[in-house]
């Protein structure tokens, strides 16, 4: 922590000390304010996110969306939140009270804890852990636990079935997610979030790690239960899913968590692959870094909303085989390929030294890695085309409805 007071936003604690406060108390106050801000910001943001999602979904479906309460219907979600709070809080008979009440809290916790390790600007980060990326993976695995707790404690067979499917989905898609994260770690040589952003000041990792960025984006959609992978709320098959018995604000917490989690996932995408806070003047004016980060996040977040409103839900067996037979093998080959190419680049001597912010110093390495990525994509597309051709030539026997039902159950 710098000892001199520059301005209130960058160095709060020294400024408070300069104002005549005890250094210990100043430190404590600045940390307290930081924790409160980081903890409350996603909760406030979620109101805007739900409004945005409803507006965009409405436009895709040729409707207006919320437009009665407040300007552009901005206060519709506040009204909905009030409705959720004053609703009767029902606990189903035979429910496991403690676990039932704990589950929504654990769910929200697992998302907000991620924000503690997100670098908002060159100087603003909750905790710059040396293992930031691994921390993100570990914390989001707690979210799986909350689904399990909610599904079991509700004492409802549909909720239990729904939670089984969701947990199978979340656990499966964690594997390509982590494998995709290995590529930025290889490129940075560190798992710290700030190191990751600083290493991208020359060039964003989406260029040298294009395939892993795509894999990360897809598995993030599945991890947050969005778009074609929204098995979490398969209302046509399982009434609702694991949160069927929840009502009032407890359901509200689950819903808010879903939106928050989706936004957090895109926030991490822009930190890991789009350079985080790095942008013009971000090093001089740290607050600008936060603006850049938010702009980048919304640029990747809004397509996911349009995607959600456009694409139909996939079947559970399709989703599982897409993960295990498509994403995971590609992710493994991708990691091996990038590691191999990086060693070659190191041997040639084209590896830019860490901390080099010059764009052109990164170009030779990025070109080699991008060519590797494109080769991988070409190989995958060729294999898919051949597989499709074989399938067409094999004269498929039309499966009877019963058989298809059995497959769907598995």
């Amino acid at each position, binding site marked *: 922590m710098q000892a001199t007071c520059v301005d209130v936003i960058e160095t709060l604690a020294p400024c408070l000390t300069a104002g005549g406060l005890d250094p210990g108390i100043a430190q404590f106050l600045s940390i307290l304010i930081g924790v409160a801000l980081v903890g409350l910001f996603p909760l406030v943001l979620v109101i805007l996110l739900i409004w945005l999602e409803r507006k965009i979904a409405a436009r895709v479906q040729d409707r207006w969306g919320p437009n009665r309460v407040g300007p552009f219907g901005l206060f519709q979600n506040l009204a909905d939140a009030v409705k959720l709070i004053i609703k009767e809080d029902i606990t189903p008979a035979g429910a496991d009270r403690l676990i039932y009440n704990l589950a929504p809290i654990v769910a929200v916790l697992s998302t907000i804890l991620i924000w503690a390790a997100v670098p908002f600007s060159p100087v603003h980060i909750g905790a710059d852990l*040396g293992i930031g990326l691994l921390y993100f993976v570990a914390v989001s695995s707690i979210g799986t636990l909350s689904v399990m707790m909610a599904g079991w404690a509700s004492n409802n067979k549909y909720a239990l079935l729904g939670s089984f499917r969701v947990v199978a989905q979340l656990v499966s898609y964690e594997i390509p997610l982590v494998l995709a994260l290995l590529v930025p770690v290889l490129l940075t040589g560190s798992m710290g979030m700030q190191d990751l952003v600083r290493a991208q000041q020359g060039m964003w990792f989406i260029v040298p790690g294009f395939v892993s960025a795509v894999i990360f984006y897809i598995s993030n959609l599945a991890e947050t239960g969005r778009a074609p992978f929204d098995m979490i709320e398969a209302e046509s098959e399982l009434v609702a899913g694991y949160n069927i018995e929840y009502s009032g604000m407890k359901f509200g917490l689950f819903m808010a968590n879903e939106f928050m989690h989706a936004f957090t996932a895109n926030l991490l995408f822009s930190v890991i692959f789009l350079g985080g806070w790095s942008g013009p003047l971000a090093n001089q004016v740290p607050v600008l870094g936060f603006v850049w980060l938010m702009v980048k996040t919304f640029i990747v977040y809004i397509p996911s909303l349009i995607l959600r409103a456009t694409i139909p839900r996939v079947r559970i067996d399709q989703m599982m085989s897409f993960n295990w037979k498509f994403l995971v093998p590609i992710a493994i080959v991708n990691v091996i390929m990038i590691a191999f190419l990086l060693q070659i680049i190191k041997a040639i001597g084209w590896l830019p030294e860490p901390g080099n912010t010059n764009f052109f110093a990164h170009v030779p390495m990025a070109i080699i890695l991008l060519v590797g990525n494109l080769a991988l994509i070409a190989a995958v597309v060729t294999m898919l085309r051949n597989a499709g051709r074989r399938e067409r030539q094999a004269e498929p026997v039309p499966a009877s409805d019963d058989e298809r039902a059995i497959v769907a159950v598995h």
Partner: protein
Amino acid sequence: MLELNVQTIAFLIFAILSLGGALGVVTSRNLIHGALYLIVSLFGGAGFFVLLSAPFIAVVQVLVYIGAIAILIIFAVMLTRSMTGMRELFNRQWWLSAIVGILLFLLLAIAVILPVWGANGSKPNLPVADQVATTQDLGVALVDGNQYVLPFEVASLLLTGAMIGAIVIARDTED
């Protein structure tokens, strides 16, 4: 001796979490509750690793033990519905597990007590390690020919074997 600072308080909290969780595991009649208590206990263990400035191991503890193994245990328990309604605390092998538990406790106690009060004399000021190892050190140690490359490879071979075995068992015989 024992001064009351933030670290001590944190240690006490983690100790209560891990010991209380462990007690809950063995005393709860509901297996799901037992599994959740196990998670509390493992969480306390992760806290100890943070206090020992080993954040990597702490996070791996959360990721592997809570995020994977505990979820797997809960999954297995839930799928076998008859096990959630168990009313007995002991089964016929309680004496065997009691012996194993006591032996393990004695072994750990000796391993902890001996270096501090044993033949090498009491060195209360002895640091736990001369240097705090980083994640990079750990990674190098696992692939360095002079260090742990052989155990690491043997372990990964074992895991691969276990995975293939699981696939073979789970596979439909009709295919």
